[in-house]
């Protein structure tokens, strides 16, 4: 992508910045309405739209690159890297759902086709004392297996991959992070509060079982299409 002259760049920067604040469905109209005919003739509209469309992916790219640099500097390689179609235990990978510093999560289905059931499989990196990690992982699995609440993703199974990475199999929730859900559905305050009551119910349940989540944030709270947390 070429760089235009300085003056056009300033202009692109302005329109891009303002358009970015609009919902993505409005970008095209917005850019169209805010550029002059002359600017459009120069192709500025396509240029800006290209930048807008790539903005979310650019964020993800820079975050991933930063994480990769840090992982490399830390001295551990990212050994967990399963491809689509490969198997983890009884499950076949459909796609990767995401990864963080410590784990990768895959969307999987039963490999033996016994019943059609999608699950999320979380494979964890092992660092340091492997025996200790394995022991802790087993304990955690036992605690989680005892949890059964409509607002908490059910744990089904767990084990170790052929390479020795611990993994857990969880209920796959098709949903949206709670903050996005509220914005998307334009919920009123009382609707938001009702949603929040569900969150509280789940947390209260977990706390009663002496379990502390330690990483509760909007991205970890998913809401399904029918409004179930």
């Amino acid at each position, binding site marked *: 992508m070429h760089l235009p002259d300085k003056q056009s760049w300033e202009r692109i920067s302005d329109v891009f910045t303002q358009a970015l604040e609009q919902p993505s469905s409005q970008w095209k109209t917005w850019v169209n309405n805010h550029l002059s005919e002359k600017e459009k003739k120069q192709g500025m509209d396509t240029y800006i739209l290209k930048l807008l469309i*790539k903005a979310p992916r650019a964020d993800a790219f820079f975050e991933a690159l930063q994480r990769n640099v840090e992982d490399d500097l830390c001295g551990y390689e990212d050994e967990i890297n399963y491809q689509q179609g490969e198997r983890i235990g009884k499950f076949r990978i459909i796609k990767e759902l995401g990864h963080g510093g410590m784990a990768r999560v895959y969307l999987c289905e039963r490999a033996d086709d016994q019943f059609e059931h999608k699950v999320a499989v979380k494979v964890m990196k092992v*660092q340091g004392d492997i025996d200790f990690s394995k022991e802790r992982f087993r304990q955690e699995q036992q605690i989680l297996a005892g949890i059964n609440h409509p607002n908490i993703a059910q744990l089904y199974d767990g084990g170790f991959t052929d390479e020795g990475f611990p993994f857990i199999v969880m209920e796959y929730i098709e949903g949206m992070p709670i903050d996005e859900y509220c914005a998307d559905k334009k919920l009123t305050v009382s609707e938001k509060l009702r949603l929040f009551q569900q969150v509280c119910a789940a947390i209260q349940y977990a706390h009663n079982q002496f379990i502390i989540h330690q990483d509760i944030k909007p991205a970890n709270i998913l809401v399904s299409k029918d409004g179930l947390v």
Partner: protein
Amino acid sequence: MTHHSTVSVAEVTLFLEEFSRGNKKALDKLFPIVYDELQRGAHKMKQQFFNLDTFNTTAIVHETYLKLIHAGSVDVKSRSHFFHIAARAMRQILINASLRKQALKRGVNPRPLPVDELDNKLELSDRTAEDLLLLNDALKKLEIQDERQAQIVECRFFGGMTIEETALALNISPATVKRSWNLAKSWLYVVLSEQ
């Protein structure tokens, strides 16, 4: 031992204050010191933090700052200037490590390295090295067009600086940092994905 081993914290602090007051020459003295210390810090952290998942460039930069500067005696602005210098040094450290990785991959040994050269020990994966070099090339193009925008990328990406720290270091408003960073990210990503 490296060449700056005789420089004291008081002296480094003085260089930083001079630089903050606008004496650009002080940068020539500061940069190599910061570069060496960052590299040392990165290497040390690699050993220390091997078992933890909390490791990031921000932590190395802050650690280096505390080690080199009399933190109590400089103001927030000078501190931000230091972070920017560190961000630039970090960029260079990572690019040097990437170039070495690439050279090794091609089977060319770039140059014999002295044993104590620490950046030698910063191992990057092929993929990361490749991405960093592409990013650096694109960033150089952006630098020619809009130097400040490139500096924002240095601060935010290579230095792990916050929007506020970047704004202070570059003497611009946080709002400008935010919008420039968004545009730069998108532009760089488009250029990289067209490679």
